């Protein structure tokens, strides 16, 4: 084993130091003989799962981790629960990836860019991870994506909803399965108009950072195009825990819809506060007052409890989605973990399989080959239905779900109901859309680390 390692790394043996060798200086850890960063040479290949394990998003990270572990089991042929069968690409054989058994290492992003990059680096530099998957915020996704680009490994983003991830910060080595703020807005606007009418006046509360702004911008643009008016947009500090002072003036502002451009704990609290103020029981401008939460997640729904009843929002995926891929995945996940998968879990699961499949189809782990195989890849299955990985910006295009908090949930898992599945055509946009960095945005060159 040890000797093997010396030779396979192509090290020059020197006479002076018997059994020791010095490799040539190279960028990152790829040595001269390796074709790309962390080229797997043994019988195994290592994936890096980078999710928040501490901090407020730890539960979501844990969900992602469970899904990724499930994906590894499915890849290694320890039973796939029928999931692989629903996947239109048949390249995966249940014997790992390219015949190599899949191993994984985990890192803790702490939902902080710095910590996430440190964790990713550790997995790349120390554990030899060939790709990084997961994450639970856009800041982290953009930061880790940039790192993976420099390091020459593939980055498969987890939950990241900001336009920037595949917009102005898009990278050749980075891929996003999750949908984005623009798509949320495009999917929501027609439903909002249908449910609430075309002459609504909207009041926006927006988390005061990049994601919040892009989300607000997208929603305002899409709803204004339907005839809505934006009465006010108030920026709330990310560190806020109580939103009462922002909610209090809403009713008296002439608005009849409140849009909460918040995520995670911010959203749970702002929605709870809004319900406390009884907004949903009020009538404004002669219409029933409504609340919209553009981006939903199962954990946020759980945190907000009964308050989500009747509140509209959008999701990338929901376990209640009725297609074969989804059913197989929910069954497999549910039997193993005793609960249905969340939409970020599904994204992380799909990303692992998509990566593995691309490797198989490309016949290599070389990130440039893998990227090429993923670009323009069309598939069905894995939960979302027909999906395209667009070559221009590495964004997945698929149907978007508009969901609503259920009035009478029967158990802890069906608190959200699917209102409409917005077809992918409606949420399509040009790769050089101004909200996505315009014509200047570029993927750059693929980096394999060689």
């Amino acid at each position, binding site marked *: 084993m040890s000797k093997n390692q010396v030779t396979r790394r192509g090290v020059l043996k020197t006479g002076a130091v018997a059994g020791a060798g010095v490799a040539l200086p190279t960028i990152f850890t790829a040595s001269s003989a390796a074709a790309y960063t962390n080229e797997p040479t043994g019988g195994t290949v290592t994936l890096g799962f980078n999710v928040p394990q501490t901090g407020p998003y730890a*539960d979501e990270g844990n969900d992602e981790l469970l899904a990724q572990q499930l994906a590894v089991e499915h890849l290694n042929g320890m039973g796939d629960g029928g999931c692989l069968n629903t996947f239109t690409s048949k390249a995966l054989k249940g014997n790992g990836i390219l015949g190599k058994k899949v191993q994984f290492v985990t890192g803790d992003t702490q939902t902080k860019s710095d910590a996430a990059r440190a964790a990713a680096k550790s997995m790349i530099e120390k554990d030899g991870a060939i790709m990084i998957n997961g994450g639970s915020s856009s800041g982290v996704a953009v930061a880790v994506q940039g790192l993976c680009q420099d390091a020459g490994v593939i980055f498969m983003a987890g939950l990241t909803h900001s336009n920037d991830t595949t917009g102005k910060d898009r990278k050749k080595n980075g891929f996003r399965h999750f949908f984005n703020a623009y798509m949320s807005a495009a999917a929501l606007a027609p439903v909002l108009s249908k449910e609430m009418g075309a002459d609504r006046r909207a009041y926006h509360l927006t988390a*005061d950072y990049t994601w919040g702004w892009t989300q607000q911008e997208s929603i305002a643009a899409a709803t204004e195009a339907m005839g809505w008016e934006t009465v006010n947009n108030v920026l709330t500090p990310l560190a806020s825990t109580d939103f009462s002072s922002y909610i209090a*003036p809403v*009713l008296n502002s002439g608005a009849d819809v409140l849009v909460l451009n918040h995520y995670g*704990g911010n959203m749970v609290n702002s929605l*709870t506060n809004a319900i*406390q103020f009884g907004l949903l029981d009020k009538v404004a401008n002669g219409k029933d007052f409504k609340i919209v939460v553009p981006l939903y997640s199962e954990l946020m729904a759980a945190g907000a409890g*009964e308050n989500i009843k009747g509140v509209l929002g959008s999701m990338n995926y929901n376990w209640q989605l009725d297609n074969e891929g989804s059913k197989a995945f929910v069954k497999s996940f549910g039997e193993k973990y005793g609960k249905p998968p969340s939409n970020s879990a599904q994204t992380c699961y799909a990303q692992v399989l998509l990566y593995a499949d691309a490797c198989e189809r490309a016949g290599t782990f070389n990130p440039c080959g893998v990227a090429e195989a993923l670009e323009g890849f069309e598939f069905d299955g894995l939960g979302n239905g027909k999906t395209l990985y667009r070559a221009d910006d590495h964004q997945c295009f698929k149907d978007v779900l508009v969901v609503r908090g259920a009035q009478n949930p029967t158990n802890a898992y069906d608190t959200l109901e699917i209102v409409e599945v917005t077809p992918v055509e409606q949420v399509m946009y040009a790769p050089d859309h101004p909200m996505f960095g315009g014509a200047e945005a570029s993927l750059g060159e693929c980096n394999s680390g060689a």
Partner: protein
Amino acid sequence: MDAIILQILNGLDKGSAYALIALGLTLIFGTLGVVNFAHGALFMIGAFCAVTVQRLLNLSFQTVDETQKDFLGNPLKVDTPYVEAWFGPEIGAAIIDWSVPLALVFAIPIMLAVGYAMERGLIKHFYKRPHADQILVTFGLAIVLQEIIKYFFGANPIQTPEPSALKGSLDIGLMLGFDPNAIIYPIWRLVYFTFSVVIIGGVFAFLQFTTFGMVVRAGMADRETVGLLGINIDKRFTIMFGIAAGVAGLAGVMYGPLNPPNYHMGMDFLVLSFVVVVVGGMGSLPGAVAAGFLLGVLESFASTTWATTTIPGINQIIIYLVAIIILLTRPRGLMGRKGVMED
């Protein structure tokens, strides 16, 4: 006008939480001379008392309902809380509905015990250590406590709703002769405000009118002299620590319906409550309460559209800005005593 009344109301309501936490912090600091960074954690533990009571009341047995399916297509297991089985569905549901007020009863002995254990087990050994050491050890304790809570309750917030009778909001504006919907305020927030006024009043009355309180106040002013009088001031201070913990805990229980408790809520409040205490003046009870309400109101006004458009980002920094200005102009805070915490 109505907008101003609304923000004042909101500020007082926000401030009541700050004031309650700061009151406990100041009690501990004033009596024991200890800077307790774990005070936010006590607030958090209080909130999780409510969560626990809710969980206990919802303890259920499962029956299989063949007519319904769960998400995997298996027959649905329906949970029936024991209380509903014991007291009948209606009374049982009502008991569960009132779990937050019930948790108050439950939280008092728990918080007193936690406070007692903390003081005897840890804080006691730090009376003679430098303030920096006290800050550090209680900071460590705060981390440990919140991680323990996270281990058992997870990182996600947990709803502890108010009783349905107290849900919804009141149109105060209508009562004052404004247009409808001008001043709407949630009932539970008014309850919280009233509650904190009662608690604050209770603590002050206790210190003002009981012999126990008089000794403690004397001890706060001059510990050695009271000790010389042969009064066992340490024991009383232990009890004061328990009371301070109790105040923080009750504040936490009642806070649950406002914003669902999560494991890091203590840390979120910690920095803020220290700013409140320092602005009020270390060791001054009226100062802490006044500063709590003052900062609540200022924060409320800073978050109005008018304020944020005049000075962008003012809502992000208002608290710190006020702290800096006050500390530079009034070295010991609003009502601080000389020589306290200046070594």
